[in-house]
């Protein structure tokens, strides 16, 4: 009953979260024992996995489900038949695992993802994660002469590194861009615009045709901060993005960021955003888009999988980079934000750290990666692992995007360094911007103020992007 539950909520509230982990009597104490199982290293076992050491894997049971992980576990078991594998899946990663990190008894592999992901800033500053550098230098499963490092797509090592240490493997590869329906565009004779002026001109046409040019999730308006930052990065170069990542003063007030914010604010001013979108969440707005009520939506490449149930069969979704803002942009039009997602970590206090590394090596094999792509329709961070797999129209366009970019894909890291800055502050400011409650200049000021606050907060560990 409603009132009982909220009272219990209050109880937990008042008691702090200590209530979750009182079985041991003390929520904060923990057994510090570290007994990492280690076996002999050999050509077939370069990471020195102890053959009979059990392995525990915890998977985030979200958009990708857990079936793909079971396949990886089967591959691991094949290589190490004596190892017993404990598999579990949850949507509440932080709530379930936080007490275990405290108790010094974390699982060996954690898929730290989803809405209640454990904050990386906390994990890293507490030294709770094992350095995966050894994995990068180990030979890949498929070819003993190729290091794992060289099988990864560009940017994967960067996005998982904190102060030069590679701590988190972002297994899925996500391309971010602006999505449209090829069917709609062909039927109307529209072409995706390569410059911002063309975008505004096309929006006028789309609106005249009775369709909202853009929709967006107003309740998660950070989705619409992505094209702003991507456009700013393309206009001003990667240094603009790095300044933001490093919380430098006035980074968000750089001319390129201002110009990009102005450009996208124009969509709101000219009435090119779907009315009511400010009250939608991502599923609602993406569904409006799938129903043909809007032409463009900003999202990452998980979109096709997320919208599977409501996408019309001949919709043919496609992704494109953000249009160039000026003719003198520092990056070509083809550059886009491409980065890893779906982070996997090996807790440093796990009982079988070697096994954890080996599990990641199995995941990064061609077979493991291809299997993931087949099962969950997402690309992986393994170079060329989707070759020969029949992909949906959305993912096919993503591979096209990657090929066309010729290695110019880039990303920002502030959102993984300082999660709250993006999830709370940038999100709120963007909601205000697109609802026309603040101007583009105020958007820059507001976020800069928050970034300064983070830069000065001694409770937040700072990272430096080189």
């Amino acid at each position: 009953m409603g009132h009982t539950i909220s009272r219990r909520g209050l109880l937990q509230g008042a008691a702090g979260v200590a209530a979750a982990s009182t079985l041991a009597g003390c929520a904060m104490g923990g057994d510090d024992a570290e007994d990492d199982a280690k076996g002999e290293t050999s050509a077939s076992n370069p990471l020195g996995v102890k053959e009979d050491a059990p392995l525990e894997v915890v998977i985030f049971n979200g958009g990708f489900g857990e079936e793909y992980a079971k396949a990886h576990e089967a591959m691991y078991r094949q290589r190490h038949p004596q190892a017993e594998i404990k598999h579990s899946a949850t949507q509440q990663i932080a709530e379930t695992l936080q007490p275990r990190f405290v108790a010094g008894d974390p699982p060996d592999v954690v898929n730290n993802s989803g809405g209640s992901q454990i904050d990386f800033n906390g994990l890293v500053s507490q030294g709770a994660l094992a350095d995966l550098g050894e994995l990068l230098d180990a030979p890949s499963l498929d070819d003993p002469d190729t290091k794992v490092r060289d099988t990864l797509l560009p940017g994967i090592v960067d996005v998982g590194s904190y102060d030069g240490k590679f701590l988190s493997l972002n297994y899925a590869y996500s391309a971010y861009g602006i999505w449209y329906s090829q069917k709609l565009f062909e039927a109307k004779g529209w072409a995706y615009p390569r410059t911002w002026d063309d975008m505004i001109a096309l929006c006028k046409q789309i609106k005249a045709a009775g369709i909202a040019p853009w929709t967006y999730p107003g309740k998660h308006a950070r989705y619409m901060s992505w094209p702003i930052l991507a456009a700013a990065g393309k206009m001003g170069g990667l240094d603009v993005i790095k300044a933001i990542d490093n919380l430098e003063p006035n980074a968000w007030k750089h001319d390129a960021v201002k110009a990009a914010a102005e450009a996208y604010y124009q969509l709101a001013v000219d009435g090119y955003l779907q009315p009511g979108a400010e009250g939608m969440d991502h599923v609602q707005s993406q569904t409006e888009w799938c129903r043909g009520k809007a032409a463009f939506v900003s999202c990452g490449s998980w979109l096709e999988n997320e919208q599977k149930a409501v996408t019309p069969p001949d919709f043919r979704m496609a992704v494109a980079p953000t249009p160039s803002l000026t003719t003198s942009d520092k990056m070509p039009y083809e550059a886009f934000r491409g980065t890893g997602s779906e982070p996997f970590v090996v807790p440093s206090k796990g009982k079988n750290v070697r096994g954890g590394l080996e599990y990641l090596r199995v995941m990064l094999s061609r077979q493991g990666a291809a299997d993931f792509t087949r099962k969950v329709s997402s690309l992986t961070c393994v170079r060329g692992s989707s070759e020969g797999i029949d992909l949906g129209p959305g993912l096919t366009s993503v591979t096209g995007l990657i090929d066309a970019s010729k290695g110019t894909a880039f990303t920002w890291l502030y959102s993984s360094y300082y999660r709250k800055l993006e999830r709370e502050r940038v999100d709120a400011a963007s909601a205000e911007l697109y609802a026309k409650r603040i101007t583009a200049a105020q958007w820059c000021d507001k976020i800069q103020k928050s970034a300064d606050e983070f830069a000065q907060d001694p409770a937040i560990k700072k990272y430096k992007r080189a």
Partner: protein
Amino acid sequence: MRGTRLFIAVFLIPPLLLYGIFVVSPYAQAFQIAGTDWSGLSPTYDFVGLDNFRRLAEDGYFWNALRHNAWLLLLLPVVTILLGLFLASMISVGGRADRAGVHGVRGSAFYRVVYFFPQVLSVAIVGVLWKEMYAPHTGMINGFLRAAGLDGLAVAWLGDPRFSFWCVMAVMIWMNVGFYVVLFSAAMQSIPRDLYEAALLDGASRLTTLVRLTVPLLWDTIQVAWVYLAIIAIDGFAIVQIITDGGPSSSSDVVGLRLYKAAFADGQFGYASAIGVAMFFLTLTVAAMFLRVTRRDRVEL
């Protein structure tokens, strides 16, 4: 004598022990954690004294959330109880009086079930349901407004900081009122019917009957309801988290959500516990205050 004591002890000790371990000790620990910079991810932490509370006093986001709780505290109990009393008296004594005496409006059994319905749903379902009800294009509320020709009123309810908080409060009233209807109508059953009949004979209107007769006789129940609702108002975490997650721009934030985010999203368990401790005293004060203000020694009709 000894035997009886032992007998009593056997029954008392296990529940007290459970209560101590699962209720008292976490509370006590929260106080301890509130004085540290514990991140919640490792066994190491430093004592920082009252730093967390100092930070709390300067945290604009916290005060903003607290302001919303204050609004809830002010309005949720009053509106819910008034609505509950009204509906309950309609169900129990609101109908036309006939020879059989005073009874509820026609179909009162049906209404009783309908009002109780939200209570049967879990908070999560209520939240998701209403999120969709408020959806700008596909939602039922804007659907009705448009059907009635009020297109101008069909706004993005949860996307507008002017409305989002009040939308959530409306849901909280909706989900709670049913329980109090049942509570009050059960209490009304114990009021002797002839009192109502006497009032009727004296020519009292329904409103007078409600204010002068029902309310005084239900005072104890109302008092309990008030404290319960006040506690719900200080919390509000679950429903807010599901419907708006505090947004847009923290316009529907509540203290419980601040606490949760500080702990699980930001990894600042020390600070989160400080919020919890502040909430603990707040709830305690409010409950004590309500009980004191509403205390009466005898019933006056």
